C-alpha cells in the first residue's frame, strides 16, 4: 500500500486525512492477514508434528467419531495392511481381521462404543503379504468438557514375538518337567530293584514311593504356574485329599501364594503328617479327625501360622526315636520356610505348629 502510494506520487507529498485513514486501514488489514498466516503456519507445523509422531510411532493408531466410525489411521496401518482409507474407513477394518476372530472382536468393541468402557483385545491382523500377526489393541474415549464422548483413540501393538517367546517358554518348561518326571520314575525303579533284591519289607518301598510321588505332585502344581508360585489350597488338596475326605480332614485358611521352595517344603511336610495319621494317628481308626488351619498376620502380613491338629485317634505316645518324617518337618520345613516348626505329641492327638516368614518374591506380593 505504502509502495503504491509512493509510486503514485512523483513529488514529495504530505498525505491528507483521507489518505492517512486509508493507510491506517491498510496496515490493520495487513496485520490481520499476517497474523492469520502465522496462525495457519503454526497450525500446519503442529499438524506436521502430529503426523510425524503418529506415522512414526511403532504402533498402529486410529481415531473414530463418537459412534465408533473410524475416519483416520496412521501411515503404519496402511503400510502393514496394504489398504487405503477408502477401504478401511468406518467399519471396513473387518476385512483385515481373521475370520475366526472377527465376530468376537466386533462384539467386544461395539460393547465399548455403546457403554464408553475402555476397550482392550488381542487378535490377529492380516498383513499385505497375507501373514497374520497378533496385536494387543486398546482404545480410550476422548470426552468434551461436558463428559460427552467426541472421539475414540485406538492403538494396535504387535505382540507376535512376545507370544512366540511365551509359547517357547511353556514348551520348554513342559519338556523339562517331563524329563524330571522320567528321572524320578527311574530313581523309583532303581530303588525298587535295590530294595527288592535286598529282601526289604515291601512297606519300605511303599513309603519311599509315596514320598517321591508327593514331591512329584507338588512339582506338577508349580509347573502349571511356570515355577513362579503355588496356591496353598492347591498344595493342600493335592497332598491331603487322596488320604481322607473333608468329613475326616478339614482344611481352612486364607489364600497364600507360596514360592516354589516353600510349596515343596509344605507339600512334603503335609505328606509326612497325613501318612503318619493314616498309619498311627487320627486317620487310623474310623472316627478320628484332623483340622488343618492357617492364618496370616494382620494388618501387615509378615508371618504365617499353620496348625495340624489331630483328635479322636488312638492315644499318642511320644516316639522314643525321631523318624525321618518328624525330622523332615522340624528341620527341612524350618530351613526352607525360614521359620519354626514344633510337633507336640499330646496324648489326645498330635499337634504340629509351623510358622513361616512371608517373603515378597519378584512380581509376587504375597509369596512366602
Amino acid at each position, binding site marked *: 500500500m505504502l509502495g503504491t502510494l509512493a509510486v503514485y506520487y512523483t513529488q514529495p507529498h504530505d498525505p491528507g486525512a483521507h489518505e492517512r485513514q486509508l493507510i491506517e486501514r491498510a496496515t490493520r488489514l495487513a496485520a490481520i492477514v499476517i497474523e492469520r498466516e502465522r496462525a495457519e503456519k503454526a497450525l500446519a507445523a503442529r499438524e506436521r508434528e502430529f503426523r510425524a509422531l503418529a506415522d512414526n510411532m511403532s504402533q498402529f493408531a486410529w481415531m473414530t467419531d463418537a459412534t465408533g466410525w473410524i475416519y483416520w489411521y496412521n501411515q503404519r496401518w496402511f503400510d502393514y495392511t496394504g489398504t487405503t482409507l477408502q477401504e478401511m474407513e468406518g467399519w471396513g477394518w473387518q476385512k483385515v481381521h481373521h475370520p475366526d476372530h472377527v465376530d468376537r472382536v466386533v462384539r467386544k468393541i461395539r460393547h465399548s462404543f455403546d457403554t464408553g468402557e475402555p476397550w482392550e483385545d488381542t487378535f490377529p491382523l492380516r498383513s499385505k503379504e497375507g501373514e497374520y500377526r497378533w496385536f494387543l489393541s486398546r482404545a480410550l474415549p476422548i470426552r468434551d468438557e461436558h463428559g460427552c464422548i467426541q472421539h475414540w483413540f485406538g492403538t494396535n501393538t504387535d505382540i507376535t514375538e512376545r507370544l512366540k517367546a511365551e509359547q517357547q517358554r511353556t514348551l520348554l518348561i*513342559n519338556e523339562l*518337567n*517331563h*524329563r*524330571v*518326571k*522320567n528321572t*524320578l*520314575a*527311574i*530313581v*523309583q*525303579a*532303581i530303588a*525298587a*530293584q535295590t530294595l*527288592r533284591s535286598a529282601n526289604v519289607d515291601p512297606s519300605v518301598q*511303599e513309603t519311599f*514311593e*509315596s514320598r*517321591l*510321588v508327593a514331591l*512329584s505332585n507338588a512339582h*506338577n502344581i508349580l*509347573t*502349571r504356574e511356570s515355577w513362579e508360585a503355588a496356591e496353598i489350597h492347591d498344595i493342600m488338596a493335592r497332598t491331603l485329599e487322596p488320604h481322607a475326605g473333608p468329613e475326616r480332614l478339614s482344611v481352612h485358611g486364607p489364600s497364600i501364594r507360596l514360592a516354589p521352595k516353600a510349596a515343596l517344603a509344605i507339600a512334603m511336610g503335609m505328606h509326612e503328617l497325613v501318612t503318619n495319621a493314616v498309619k498311627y494317628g487320627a486317620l487310623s481308626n474310623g472316627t478320628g479327625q484332623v483340622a488343618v488351619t492357617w492364618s496370616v498376620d494382620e494388618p501387615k502380613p509378615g508371618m504365617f501360622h499353620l496348625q495340624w491338629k489331630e483328635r479322636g485317634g488312638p492315644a499318642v505316645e511320644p516316639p522314643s526315636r525321631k523318624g525321618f518324617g518328624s525330622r523332615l518337618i522340624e528341620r527341612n520345613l524350618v530351613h526352607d520356610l525360614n521359620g519354626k516348626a514344633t510337633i507336640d505329641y499330646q496324648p489326645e492327638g498330635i499337634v504340629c505348629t509351623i510358622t513361616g516368614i512371608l517373603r515378597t518374591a519378584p512380581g509376587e506380593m504375597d509369596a512366602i
Partner: protein
Amino acid sequence: MTTEMSCRRVLIVEDESMVAMLLEDMLTDLGHEVVATVGQMDRAAELVAGAAIDVAILDVNLNGERTYSLATVLKSRGVPFIFATGYGAAGLNEEWRSAPILGKPFQAKDLNRVMREVFEHRAAGDRANT
C-alpha cells in the same frame, strides 16, 4: 476293599528300560501277564496291530516321538490303553486329553486303580451296547 482283578495280558511300550522293568514288576505283582515290552516305535506298531493283548500301557513320548498313532490303532481294534506320561493330562493333545492317564512317577496302587477304571469303564460300555 480292593477286590482281586482278573489277569490281563499287557503290552508295555516304554523306551526307558528301568521304568519298563518297574512296570513289569508292578504288573506281575498285581497278577497280570506282561506279553511284551518294547521301546521302539516300529516294533510297537507291529505288536499294537496284531498281538493278542487285553490292554497296552503307552509312554506318550517314545524316543521323542508321540505314540498317538499307536493309540489310534488300538482304539480301532477295541483294545483299551493307558498313557503313561511325565507331562500330565496337559501334555496330551486335545484328541486324547480324556484318555486314561498315569502320571509318572506312579505307585502300584495308582496303576491298579487306572487298570480297574479302564476295564470297569469298558464293562459299563458293553452293558450299554447290549
